[in-house]
């Protein structure tokens, strides 16, 4: 720390301490003997600490957060009085913005600053709404300062000991209120990543505490807002539905060939040849419906769709079978006497189909119905599933993380389900 001629003598060791915060500093620790003392004449108490802790952000370090340059003025280690866990707070200062806190617990950081107005109250005592977002009570605690170093603009030891704290969260944001008989101070906070802290204060990220578990304001996945994701997903599904509706209603389903073939007409030939038919327009689908009057029988055919313009041959097979009978449970059937072959992206041109049939002993005929430009629903369902993967994954992960997050709280909304 530099740039101040404002000094104070330690009431214990008489060492002269330079006071960075000038007259704004109301309590500080002695740079020589480390005791905590109040600056004002109204309280001469000296507080020693029994343990020493090292701040990850050295006092006097400057850092830029949201475009504001802050200097680290003070460092405290606080201990919750019921569960005895500890966390660390850094008091930051900027002459134009006032003070703010960087709080760190288990390697998770929040930037917290006092706010002018109390947030809007909700319907219950445990929550409230601000900016259309519901904040849930996460913790209520009393704490003590177990260590302090640096300068403070208030008596941090006395205030911490005398206030009841409540924290409400809507990750990555939080509201905190410190209440005592003499004051009600509301603060707003936001999760800040370890990397952002390291980058803001120009320290190595690896020198900051290691992250454990999930932070109580840590967002589920970066900066994604659930409501935005829901709204966008609805928009995407509507767009998909409209597209499918367009394709279904505009599918021409033109019959380009229809005919029946009899085994008796085959003679010594091995295949049937359909008359030529013309497919027009751009690439479209083509379906071949095969119908054979089967009764406990099968029909197999190998088909070649031949483009007479360029000789390209598209070969596919179709096996249809139909069985029926009676057993202990009554009548049963299996298979169908109808089959469909779907051919994708068939370009315009003059075509015919060669059919290489294999008849069984009792099956002797089949019919073909060839249609151009037939819509399919399966792409729609697949696209639906593919598009739902991300939001589904997000909400599954969010649910798991929220349960884990709230397992640290006495006010978990998940407790009632478990």
């Amino acid at each position, binding site marked *: 720390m530099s740039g101040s001629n404002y000094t104070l003598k330690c009431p214990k060791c008489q060492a002269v301490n330079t006071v960075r915060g000038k007259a704004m500093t109301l309590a500080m620790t002695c740079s020589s003997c480390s005791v905590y003392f109040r600056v004002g004449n109204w309280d001469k108490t000296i507080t020693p600490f029994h343990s020493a802790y090292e701040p990850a952000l050295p006092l006097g370090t400057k850092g830029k957060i949201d475009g504001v340059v802050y200097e680290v003025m003070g460092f405290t280690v606080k201990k919750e009085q019921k569960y005895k866990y500890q966390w660390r707070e850094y008091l930051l200062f900027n002459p134009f913005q006032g003070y703010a806190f960087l709080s760190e617990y288990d390697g998770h950081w929040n930037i917290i600053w006092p706010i002018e107005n109390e947030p809007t109250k909700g319907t219950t005592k445990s929550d409230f709404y601000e900016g259309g977002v519901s904040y849930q009570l996460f913790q209520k605690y009393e704490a003590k300062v177990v260590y302090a170093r640096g300068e403070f603009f208030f008596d941090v030891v006395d205030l911490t000991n005398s206030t009841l704290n409540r924290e409400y969260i809507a990750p990555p944001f939080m509201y905190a209120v410190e209440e005592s008989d003499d004051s009600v101070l509301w603060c707003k906070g936001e999760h800040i990543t370890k990397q952002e802290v390291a980058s803001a204060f120009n320290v190595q990220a690896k020198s900051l505490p290691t992250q454990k578990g999930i932070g109580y304001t840590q967002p589920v*996945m*970066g*900066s*994604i*807002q659930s*409501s*935005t*994701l829901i*709204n*966008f997903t609805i928009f*995407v599904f509507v*767009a*998909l539905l409209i*597209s*499918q509706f*367009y*394709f279904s209603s505009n599918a021409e389903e033109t019959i380009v060939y229809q005919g029946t073939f009899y085994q008796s007409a085959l003679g010594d030939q*091995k*295949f049937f*040849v359909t008359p030529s038919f013309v497919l027009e327009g*751009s*690439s*479209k*689908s*083509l379906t071949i419906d095969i119908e054979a009057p089967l009764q406990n029988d099968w029909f197999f055919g190998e088909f*070649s769709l*031949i483009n*007479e*313009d*360029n*000789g*390209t*041959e*598209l*070969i*596919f*097979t*179709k096996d249809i079978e139909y069985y029926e009978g009676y057993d202990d449970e009554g009548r049963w059937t299996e298979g169908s006497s109808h089959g469909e*072959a*779907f*051919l*994708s*992206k*068939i370009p315009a041109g003059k075509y*015919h189909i*060669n059919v*290489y049939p294999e008849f069984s002993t009792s099956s002797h005929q089949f019919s073909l119905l060839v249609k151009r*430009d*037939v*819509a*399919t629903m*399966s*792409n*729609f369902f*697949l*696209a639906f599933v*593919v*598009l739902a993967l*991300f*939001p589904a994954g997000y909400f599954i992960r969010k649910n798991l993380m929220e349960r884990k997050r709230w397992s640290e709280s006495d006010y978990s909304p998940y407790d009632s389900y478990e």
Partner: protein
Amino acid sequence: MNWDDFKGLKYYIAYAAVVIGFFVYSGATGWKWFNPTHTETEHNSGTGHHVGRSYIYHK
């Protein structure tokens, strides 16, 4: 909700745009993504009725 909220969704927006685009292209060209009808293509220089595998059968 404001436009900044969509920044967090940029990868999903790009992904959805690709999927929807692919869906529209497939719908326009009659491309069924998972088609149970398996096909093989053969190219032949002739243009008559008896080409490719048909020609083999025909022989």
